[in-house]
C-alpha cells in the first residue's frame, strides 16, 4: 500500500478513502525510539538549533522512512512547516499543501478538503464511507477519554496515546481498533484511580511522554489532554466540513479556549499544565491563556525529546506541592 505522510492532523478520511496508508510524521518521530538522534540528524543537515524540535524530528523521520509523498499543513500550523516543505521539495519529496482557513469559513474548509480529494482522486461517497469507518473507532476512543475523567480508569498516558494515535490510526485502522477494544476490556476490570490532584494538559503533545507517569508518582493525574483529544475528532457530526471547522487546534487561541474552559470545568481539573515547545509561536499565547483560564497554570517548556529532565521535574514537583497545600487549606477551611 502506498504510504503518505502528513505534518499534522489532516482529513484522514481522504487518505483512507484513497486506499493510502496514513503516516502521522509526529507519531513515527516520537515513538520510533531514536527521536533524539533524528533531531541531531536534522541539525547536521543544517536546521538551526533554535528551531522547533518537532520540525527537525519530522524532517529526519521523512528522510529515514523513505516516504515520497507528504501532505503539509501550510495554514493552521506554523510557518516552520512552510520552510520544511520547501526543503523537502528541494530534496525530491512530493508535497501536497493543505490549509485550514484562519476564519474557519465553511466554504474554504470544503474547498481545501475537495482539493485534497482531487489530488488523491476520490469522491464524497468514498470519503463519507471512510468517515463512517473512522468514526466507529473515534467513538471508542471517546469512551477511553470518558473512562479517564469520569470513571478514573485510564492513566494520563493511556488517554494521550489512544487519542494521539487517532490521527493516523497507527497506519492500520483494523489493527488499531483491535488494540482499542483490548484496552477497553482491560480497563473495565480495573479499580478506579484515586489521585488527589486532577490536571488538565493543554498545548501541543509533550516531547517527553514520561510526564504522565512522573505526575502520577506525585499523586496527580492528567484527566484532560486538550490537543490529543482534538486529534481524535471529539465532535459527533456526520458533516465532514463541520468536523474540521469544530476541530480547534489549527485555529485561533480563542476558539481553543472555548473548548478548554468548559472541558476543564466538566472534568473538575484542579490546575493546568500548559506545555509549550521551545521556539514555538504558541509560547506567546501563554499570555492570553493565563488571562482567560481561571485555574493555576504551570507553563512547561520542552525542547529535545527524551525523558523528563531534572529541571522540569523540579517545576512539576513544586507545582503539585503547591496544589496539595491549597487542597489542604480548602479542606481545613471547610472543617
Amino acid at each position, binding site marked *: 500500500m502506498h504510504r503518505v505522510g502528513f505534518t499534522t492532523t489532516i482529513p484522514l478520511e481522504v487518505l483512507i478513502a484513497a486506499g493510502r496508508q496514513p503516516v502521522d510524521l509526529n507519531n513515527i518521530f516520537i515513538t520510533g525510539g531514536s527521536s533524539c538522534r533524528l533531531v541531531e540528524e536534522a541539525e547536521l543537515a543544517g536546521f538551526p538549533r533554535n528551531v522547533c524540535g518537532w520540525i527537525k524530528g519530522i524532517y529526519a523521520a521523512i528522510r529515514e522512512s523513505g516516504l515520497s509523498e507528504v501532505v503539509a499543513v501550510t495554514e493552521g500550523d506554523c510557518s516552520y512547516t512552510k520552510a520544511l516543505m520547501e526543503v523537502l521539495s528541494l530534496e525530491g519529496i512530493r508535497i501536497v499543501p493543505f490549509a485550514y482557513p484562519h476564519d474557519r469559513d465553511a466554504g474554504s474548509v470544503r474547498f481545501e478538503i475537495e482539493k485534497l480529494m482531487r489530488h488523491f482522486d476520490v469522491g464524497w461517497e468514498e470519503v463519507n464511507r471512510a468517515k463512517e469507518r473512522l468514526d466507529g473507532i473515534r467513538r471508542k476512543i471517546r469512551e477511553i477519554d470518558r473512562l479517564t475523567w469520569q470513571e478514573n480508569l485510564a492513566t494520563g498516558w493511556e488517554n494521550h496515546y489512544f487519542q494521539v494515535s487517532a490521527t493516523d490510526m497507527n497506519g492500520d485502522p483494523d489493527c488499531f481498533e483491535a488494540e482499542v477494544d483490548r484496552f477497553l476490556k482491560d480497563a473495565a476490570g480495573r479499580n478506579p484511580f484515586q489521585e488527589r490532584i486532577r490536571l488538565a494538559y493543554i498545548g501541543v503533545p509533550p516531547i517527553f511522554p514520561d510526564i504522565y507517569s512522573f505526575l502520577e508518582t*506525585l*499523586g496527580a493525574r492528567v484527566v484532560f489532554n486538550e490537543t490529543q483529544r482534538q486529534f481524535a475528532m471529539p465532535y459527533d457530526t456526520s458533516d465532514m466540513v463541520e468536523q474540521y471547522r469544530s476541530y480547534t487546534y489549527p485555529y485561533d487561541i480563542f476558539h481553543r479556549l472555548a473548548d478548554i474552559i468548559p472541558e476543564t470545568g466538566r472534568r473538575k481539573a484542579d490546575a493546568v499544565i500548559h506545555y509549550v515547545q*521551545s521556539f514555538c509561536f504558541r509560547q506567546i499565547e501563554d499570555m492570553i491563556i493565563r488571562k482567560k483560564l481561571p485555574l*493555576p497554570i504551570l*507553563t512547561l*517548556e520542552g*525542547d529535545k525529546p527524551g525523558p523528563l529532565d*531534572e*529541571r522540569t*521535574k*523540579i*517545576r512539576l*514537583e*513544586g*507545582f503539585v*506541592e*503547591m496544589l496539595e*497545600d*491549597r487542597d489542604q*487549606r480548602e479542606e481545613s477551611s471547610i472543617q
Partner: protein
Amino acid sequence: MRIGIDLGSRKAKFALFRDNKIVRLADYDTITFYKRFGSLDGDDLSLDLHGSGLFGSEELSLAEVMVTGYGRNTLSLKGAHIVSEVRAHVAGAIFQTGLKNFTMLDMGGQDTKVALVKEGRLEDFVMNDKCAASSGRYLENMAAVLEVGLEELSSHWEEPVKLDATCGIFGESELIGQILRGHSTAALCAGVNQTLVKRVLPMLRRFPSKTIVLVGGVALNGALARLLELETGLPLVVPDHPQHNGAIGCATLKSRDRDK
C-alpha cells in the same frame, strides 16, 4: 533539633535549628562536598555528614534531616526527608522576614525563581528555563572577565554600560568590547548587574505585590538589589542569610507522607 540542607548547583548549604531557632549555618562548595563526602548506596545518595565535621554526633543523632536543591531529583538522599525547592525557599523567606504577603525572588547559581506568597502560602511561581544567563554563575564569569572580585562587582550600580547579548557566554565577548571602548570598571560592573535585573523583570511583573523578598546567593549583591528597587519602585527586603534561605526553610518545614 532539625537540620536543613540545600544542595545547590554551586554550594551546599546547611542550617542547624534547635527550638525553631538557628544554631549554626554552614556551606561547602558543591563539587568538593560531593567528592569528599558523597557516595552511592544503591540508587540513594549517601552524604557522610559525620565525616564532614559540620555537625557533632549528638546533633546528627537527634536531628531530623530535611533536604532540597539540585541534587534531590538525581538521587534520593538516604535517611532524609525531601521537599521541593520552591516550598523550601518560601518557608525560609517567611521565617527570616516574618512577612506573609510578598513576591519572592530567589537567584541562585543557575536557577531564578519568582514566587507569589499570600497570607503565608505559596500562590504561584515561575522559574527560568532553558537558559541560566540570569544567574549567580553568570556574575562569577563576568567578574572573572573584568578581573574583579564578586565584592567589587556587587558595589556598582550607577551609570550602567548597556549590555544586551542574549547568551551569557557571548556576553563575555560583548563585555570585552566595552572594556576596549574605555568604560570604567565601575560602569561595566553596573552594566553586568543591570543585565540581570532586566532578565528577571518580566518574571517579577507576572506576580505583582507590595514587597519583594530577595534571596539566594545573588542577594548578597547589593548593587543588584539597588537596581531592582529602582526598576520596580518597590521596597526590597533581603533577609540576614539570603544564601542559606533554602536550608533555613528546610529546617523549618515538617515532613510529609510522600517524602522519602
